[in-house]
């Protein structure tokens, strides 16, 4: 029975083509995932094997020591915590300002619509470098340097436009009658927004929650510059610092990288559909 199934797979023209295409796609996947595999396998190697003369493509003996070296280090743990703080604060600010604006832009067509759209598109395109020096000087004047909120304020400036542009089509697709019905039932604009409109675009909300968190998690430039105390820096901004401690102990460095990547991979596995949808709609990455 099984045999005839395979016969069909390889002996029809369709089946053969499917087989070839699948083979090519597996090769592509191997090439593209190889760097991540490489990072992971080094992170499970012993010091001795890392310093060995012969390059091995799989650990001879798997050890979690490099991971523990990182996880037992209080500096590492505080950086990890800072990365989460960075991600969540960026997400919070971006959603707070972004979701209402996306609704306003999708549901209404107010005077000055084009000006708003232009402002959002432009701020999405701007290089962070352009804001870095003036913001550093301003933050220094108003004593925001070295606070947890300083980097997310800057990161959110790039993420808010993303939220607006990604979420607007979702709000636009809700029939206006839904809002009107809610008003007749006695809701005001704000109640209708929170109780009817936002729940109706749940898919879009998941997308922007994930991506705005990742924008904060992945940030390097703002976090490194505005968190003047290294103890307040997230993992991304402390890479060089840890590298100077680990030297050429690549197993520890790669474990560091792997832990930094892990939350991204977990989110990606479970929420792939939302992330990809959002990337296509907003076409944005910070």
């Amino acid at each position, binding site marked *: 029975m099984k045999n005839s199934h395979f016969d069909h797979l390889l002996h029809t023209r369709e089946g053969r083509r499917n087989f070839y*295409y699948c083979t090519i*796609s*597996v090769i*592509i*996947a191997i090439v*593209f995932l190889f*760097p*991540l595999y*490489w*990072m992971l396998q080094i992170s499970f190697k012993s010091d001795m094997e890392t310093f060995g003369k012969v*390059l091995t*493509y799989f650990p001879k003996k798997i050890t979690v020591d490099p991971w523990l070296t990182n996880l037992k280090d209080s500096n590492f743990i505080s950086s990890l915590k800072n990365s989460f703080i960075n991600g969540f604060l960026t997400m919070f600010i971006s959603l707070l*300002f972004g979701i*209402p*604006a996306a*609704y*306003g832009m999708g549901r*209404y067509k*107010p*005077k000055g619509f*084009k000006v*708003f759209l*232009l*402002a*959002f598109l*432009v*701020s999405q*395109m701007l*290089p*962070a*470098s*352009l*804001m*870095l*020096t*003036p*913001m*550093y*000087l*301003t933050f220094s004047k108003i004593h925001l340097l070295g606070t947890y909120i300083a980097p997310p*304020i*800057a990161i959110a*400036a790039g993420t*808010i436009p993303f939220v*607006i542009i990604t979420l607007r089509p979702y709000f636009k697709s809700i029939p206006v009658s839904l809002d009107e019905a809610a008003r007749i039932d006695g809701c005001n*604009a704000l109640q209708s927004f929170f109780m009817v409109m936002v729940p109706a675009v749940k898919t879009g909300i998941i997308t922007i929650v994930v991506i705005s968190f*990742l924008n904060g998690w*992945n940030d*390097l*430039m703002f976090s490194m*510059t505005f968190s003047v105390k290294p103890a307040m820096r997230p993992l991304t901004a402390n*890479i060089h610092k840890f590298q100077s401690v680990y030297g050429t102990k690549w197993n520890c460095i*790669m474990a*560091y*990288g792997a832990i930094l*990547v892990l939350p*991204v991979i977990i989110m*990606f596995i479970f929420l792939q559909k939302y992330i990809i949808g959002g*990337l296509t709609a907003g076409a944005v*990455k910070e």
Partner: protein
Amino acid sequence: MKKDKTRESYAFILPAFIYLIVVVGYPIVYNFVISFKNMDVSNLQSGTSVFIGLKNYTSLFSNPTFLLILRNTFVFTICCLVFQFTIGFLFALFFYKKFTFAGPVRGLILVSYMIPMSVTGLLGQNLFLNNGVINDLLKHIGIAGPQWLVQTSTAIIAVIIMNCWVGIPFNMLLLISGLSNVPQEVYESSSIDGATKLEQFFCITLPLMKDAIFAVLMLGFIYTFRAFDLMFIMTSGGPLNSTDVLATYSYSLSFTQFQFSKGSSVAVILFLCLFVVGLFYLKLIINGEEKEES
């Protein structure tokens, strides 16, 4: 009634708009102002910096290091765009076909796009070590690999390769969504007329995807031209500034040499280059918006 609606909509939109004016608009103006001054660490506290006109800019353009960095930025951007776009397009055409693994593999290779660029830089450092895996693989096919990150001529190649690892899946994703907007019937009727696959690609697919292609290239330029994280972690701009780009140079002027005005003027030049390309992109988006409304 109409007035109510307008007021309502402003209540939703204005907080975000004001946020961006304060957090983006103000710094940009301030950045321009600083770039015409002589602000550095010596006069920051006292606030005694003065306007010196275009001096920062003229000194930049007579500085060979800056000219090298300007060149690096363009070489990096253009090489990345060419490879990302071509390979990304081939991948898009391939993964747009229907086969069992098309969906899963397409999703899988996008992971490189999601991870922090700083980790990509870290990975690049390891892969391109003198006795690293790239050279090991090259040895197996009989090629003696160069000292990638030590030589000025090869370091930029390594950085470009790492950036393409991220850029190819992204280009693919956007181009697939462009492909899916080409109506299938056009292909069917043209193959009845006897058009070959290649003719179909050049006479149907490309022209119909014009806007999508244009948008992908513009976005690609904008994101690649302002690259920072990759070089900062992977090479720190070295060896001998060979992988320094405008963003990393601006950062090091402002925050390792504390010459804030010099750093700002490099950022302005970065901005102006993006602005030219950005205008075309904005026009495309706004036009699309108008088409959709009418």
